């Protein structure tokens, strides 16, 4: 079985936005973990693809250290200005030159929350696909996979034939932390670095960033618990519009 996992390097949003620390997109870490679980003990291959600046190599190394087999790195200093549409177009042209059974993406980028690339790539490749997967397993016959996805109401269980594409939620698993052995082995794994010119023009662009309007600080209710509760319910009755 051959997996292709599309991974992205993103700014760490859990700390200060401007900390500058870059990490493997959490949803992509779950995609890598899902591929590792499915291929455990088989001679399957997990191939990675990343479009990003030279410095994104450390993110590729991290995913290799988790256990992926090999990677291609489309090196571009301008990948930040590529929208999901142009990322998906580039990924699609790469997919046309390789063999794969299952393509995994993250369900969204942690920094932009766009959530478009997976579906776009599936459309380019005319693959059956499922998004927002929280579970992934082989069909008994190994000629397809069973995806559990989080829908609007309830979880939908789908059967997809191979080849297919799935976008992964971080609710699917807890990605492993690379072991020391994994980190050592990753140093020997091949990263096919290719300089790349982005030819497809993005149809969307970011004009600027703004700070969300600051909220008024909360009114903290004081007193004995009973008094706090009475004051709260009074406020709810007067202000919430639902009584």
């Amino acid at each position, binding site marked *: 079985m051959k997996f292709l996992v599309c991974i992205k390097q993103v700014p760490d949003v859990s700390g200060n936005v401007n900390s500058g620390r870059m990490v493997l997109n959490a949803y992509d870490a779950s995609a890598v973990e899902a591929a590792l679980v499915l291929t455990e003990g088989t001679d399957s291959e997990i191939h990675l693809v990343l479009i990003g600046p030279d410095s994104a190599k450390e993110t590729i190394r991290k995913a290799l250290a988790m256990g992926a087999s090999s990677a291609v790195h489309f090196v571009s200093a301008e990948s930040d200005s590529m929208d999901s549409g142009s990322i998906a177009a580039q990924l699609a042209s790469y997919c046309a030159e390789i063999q794969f059974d299952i393509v995994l993406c993250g369900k969204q980028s942690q920094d932009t*929350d766009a959530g478009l690339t997976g579906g776009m790539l599936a459309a380019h490749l005319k693959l059956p696909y499922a998004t927002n997967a929280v579970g992934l397993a082989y069909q008994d016959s190994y000629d397809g996979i069973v995806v559990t996805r989080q829908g609007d109401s309830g979880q939908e269980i789908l059967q997809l034939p191979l080849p297919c594409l799935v976008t992964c939620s971080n609710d699917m698993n807890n990605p492993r932390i690379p072991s020391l052995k994994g980190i050592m082995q990753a140093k020997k794994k091949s990263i096919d670095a290719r300089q790349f010119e982005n030819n497809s023009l993005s149809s969307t662009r970011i004009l600027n960033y703004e700070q969300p309007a600051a909220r008024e600080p*909360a*009114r*903290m209710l004081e007193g004995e618990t009973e008094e706090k509760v009475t004051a709260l319910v009074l406020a709810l009755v007067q202000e919430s519009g639902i009584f």
Partner: protein
Amino acid sequence: MGKILVHVGSQGGEAKRSSLEVLSHVSRKIAGSDDVVVACVFDVNPGRLEQTIGEYGADDILMYMDPAYESHLNGVLAAGLEDAIRATAPSLVVFASSESVKDILGAIAVNTGAAVLPDVVSFSAGSGFVEAVRPVMAAKSLARVRAEGELIFVSVRSGSVEAIKNPKNPGTTTFEAPIKPADLKQQLKEIIKAADETVDLSEARVVVAAGRGVKDEVGKRLVEELAGLFGGGIGASRAVVETDLFPATAQIGQTGKVVSPDLYFALGISGAIQHVAGMSNSRMIVAINKDADAPIFEYADYGIVGDLYTVVPLLIEEIKRHK
């Protein structure tokens, strides 16, 4: 702009509130006097859809009524939408950002050659372009974005615009599904609904959300009882979903759902940005947490520092006295 197509999400013949927000906003604020607002809806039976959609401002309705739309299946919905887009030839298509829409937006954009701005909180449209504001970095920051093209898709976060009636007398055309589930390579096997999921979270006027501070069945019953008083939805943080006390469908936040009720209770939730990303659109936020320094209080309108196991039972009694 000419024609603007609005996708109206529905279930069982009832339009979703988030879609009525979008439809109303488009008809009142986006469409110019020469523009025609066309709504398209995909369901099994029309129910009250025609009436509701007319009330919220559609000039025309494309009703795709077919058993194929009984459950969500991306290929089936995508084919229906692509058909509606071909039939309408709009310059702009607007959606409410539901899970079903997120599932097909990228694919139909590629298939129709559209530029897409997903999950926006506000937007304006001109000839050949749309400018919008969308939360990024787990809603820590807002990006002003611009799309250009002959066909542009915009999906709008629930609770971002107002659903105000704007009655019209639309003409309706009914279609069958252009693609049926049996035509697809993928198959929907089953839908698992959590037993306690009676109220649609993204539509609920009141949401009671549990965090890791809710530790057991006793706490869970408090959450259910409080929600029950308002006919509200039950939400959860990722940390408490991981304990299996609440279903994953209840998760609110960056990974989970975006909700925008009139009233949101955060019970034993610390207020991590990834959680706040899914609930800060709520109109009124109440936080109950035993830690006075919990970040959730920075987003709340009212806060009570205390143990939820003592506060919530009193709160339930006090609310009952006012009902």
